[in-house]
């Protein structure tokens, strides 16, 4: 599997994501935000956590207008896979590749802690390594993770089984406890928690490993 990880000037989980992909057997290329092309034959694009352009104005807003995001949109429109974690999720909503927005946490504070994450569907390349109903321990670290969408969008997400993960104990006020969602073709995942921070024994938990393994499995076979 060939993965590309986007590097915005304020990305700070880019290396972490690349390490997790590599540990799962992927071949990783880093892509600079000013590039308007992705590497050829890339299977999945990772949009990492961090503060893309300082997260000034709105989280992910300025990043969504960068040259590399135009390339990312093309990749997704051609049916390519993408995963956005934390700031990456915010970027994906700002580009319109995923619906809704991420508002300031209800408690208004930045929160970094390991939370319980319920797998809502195993029907995606990202989540097929889990069983629906599994509860994982995965860290969160964000200021704006409070998922919001209008009723119609929420109904569609629910009805189509596109809610990938929910919090067992909602930390940020997110609607329906949403922690991660899928696009309508189920090939784009956005999630606030950081599976790449629970991907090797040294992290004190490895519940995120199955996500990366499942992806490599699915996309290598494809």
């Amino acid at each position, binding site marked *: 599997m060939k993965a590309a990880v986007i590097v915005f000037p304020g990305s700070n989980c880019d290396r972490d994501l690349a390490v997790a992909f590599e540990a799962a057997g992927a071949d990783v290329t880093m892509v600079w935000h000013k590039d308007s092309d992705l590497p050829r034959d890339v299977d999945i694009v990772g949009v990492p956590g961090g503060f893309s352009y300082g997260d000034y104005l709105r989280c992910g807003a300025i990043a969504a207008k960068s040259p590399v995001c135009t390339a990312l949109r093309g990749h997704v429109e051609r049916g390519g896979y993408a995963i956005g974690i934390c700031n990456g999720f915010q970027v994906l909503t700002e580009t319109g590749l995923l619906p809704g927005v991420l508002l300031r946490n209800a408690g208004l504070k930045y929160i970094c802690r390991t939370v319980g994450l319920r797998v809502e569907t195993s029907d995606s390349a990202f989540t097929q390594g889990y069983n629906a109903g599994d509860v994982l321990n995965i860290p969160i670290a964000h200021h704006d993770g409070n998922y919001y969408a209008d009723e119609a969008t929420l109904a569609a997400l629910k009805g189509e089984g596109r809610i990938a993960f929910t919090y067992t104990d909602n930390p940020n006020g997110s609607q329906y406890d949403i922690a991660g969602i899928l696009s309508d073709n189920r090939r784009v995942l956005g999630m606030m928690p950081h599976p790449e921070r629970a991907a090797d024994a*040294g992290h004190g938990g490895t519940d995120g490993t199955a996500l990366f393994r499942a992806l490599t499995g699915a996309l290598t076979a494809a």
Partner: protein
Amino acid sequence: MQDPAITPDLIAAHGLKPDEYERILEIIGRAPTFTELGIFSAMWNEHCSYKSSKKWLRTLPTDGPQVICGPGENAGVVDIGDGQAVVFKMESHNHPSYIEPYQGAATGVGGILRDVFTMGARPIAAMNSLSFGATTHRKTRQLVNGVVEGIGGYGNCFGVPTVGGEVRFHAAYNGNCLVNAFAAGLADADAIFYSAASGVGMPVVYLGAKTGRDGVGGATMASAEFDDTIEEKRPTVQVGDPFTEKRLMEATLELMKTGAVISIQDMGAAGLTCSAVEMGDKGGLGIRLDLERVPVREQNMTAYEMMLSESQERMLMVLRPEKEAEAKAVFDKWDLDFAIVGETIAEDRFLIQLNGETKADLPLSKLASSAPEYDRPWVEPAAPAPLGDVTAIDPIAGLTALIASVNYAGKQWVYEQYDTMVMADSARVPGLGAGIVRVHGTDKALAFTSDVTPRYVRANPVEGGKQAVAEAYRNLTAVGARPLASTDNLNFGNPEKPEIMGQFVGAIKGIGAAVAALDMPIVSGNVSLYNETDGAAILPTPTIGAVGLIENVADIIGCDVRDGHVLLVVGD
């Protein structure tokens, strides 16, 4: 604009005592210009010159086979084997944080991170030691909120995990909170960058963010006791920009790999002045600056303002001329300013010109080395009154009271606002004792702790100083780390009072004895004096930051107590 005339009032407003001004006249043999007066005041204030503390700091043990670079550079450097080194330091931002808690604390974090990456190290861990007034005091809540948010706001965006720290509350900090920030970075031992310039005619390059009128006079403020004129001094606080700092770090580390950097220095308090003088002095060279080339964000800045500006996220570098294009390309890539603003010269001069007009022309080595040094009178602090009878208390009630007190309660509310895991190498996040970060790509890990118990130091400065070091040592060994070295942040009241100076001297003696006995030399540090409001001093607070090495992360001593484990008490 006409420069103001040099009057006794103006001299006093620069924090210079009459005898100090006499000394300036002696050194330059004439009256200084306004810009020169500003330069002297910046170089000679307590914050930059350590004039009250130097004599005692010299007594601290700073050597050991593990030490690659002790105090004197931006941060200390310690060998961790396999050709790698850990670079670390702690620094205070007490006064700015009291005035503007968010930005004061944020820029404190920014400053210490810059100290670390200026040496060629990528920051991998941060800690913060915070002292606030009583929880019932009207300002405390706002200060705690602002300071914690500011530390998180800066560190989280920059992308360094905060893995430890302390929070205490005591009425002695009501009018003067303490914000001590620690940062550590990882470098190759043979690729450490220092500040000494070398070579004549080498370009002096300005890097990073643009210069504004931020904090002109700020360095003077940091060393002045607070009083009710504080309101007027307010605009001396700067806004931090962690996004620019992150880019500055990436660009600097990338630049260092090109071989373009001869020497480099971050611009902290009194930015351009201190950084340029230090680079020249350490290299035995003079420096000429053409200020019209300095990137500015405001119109019509004067030489005085540019030389004293404390705008954040800036560095000064001496460049290998043949690498100019390559170096500039790196900064263009990261959308940062890069400007050649002067050159190294053979004569011993600090020559400042603006549009061809000479604004300052001072003997550089004198400027660096002639700062006053005081042997301030001190007295042995009086022994504390005996405690008297301690009332008997039911052990469980006592335990409940301890756990419920703000000083011993869990500090999740604080550290959950910090990203403790970014970089994905945190092996132990805050919560219990030392924080641990893996050395990326190896089996090794580094442990970090920050400790002091101010009431012990007040009761007996020597023993309290020892205790702070001993506690740091225990926190490191308790997780399985071998203590390597330490840094200190010495927060005290007004050193012109003999009792306060006595606390300072005593604490240094205690710290010195303990680090010698435990082989944990002090490799960097910071002194913050004049922590007083209306004559009332803080508790003496010499914070000790310490670093230990764990050869194999698999050997970390865990803290997951399970059924069937046996509890042992070790020691006296």
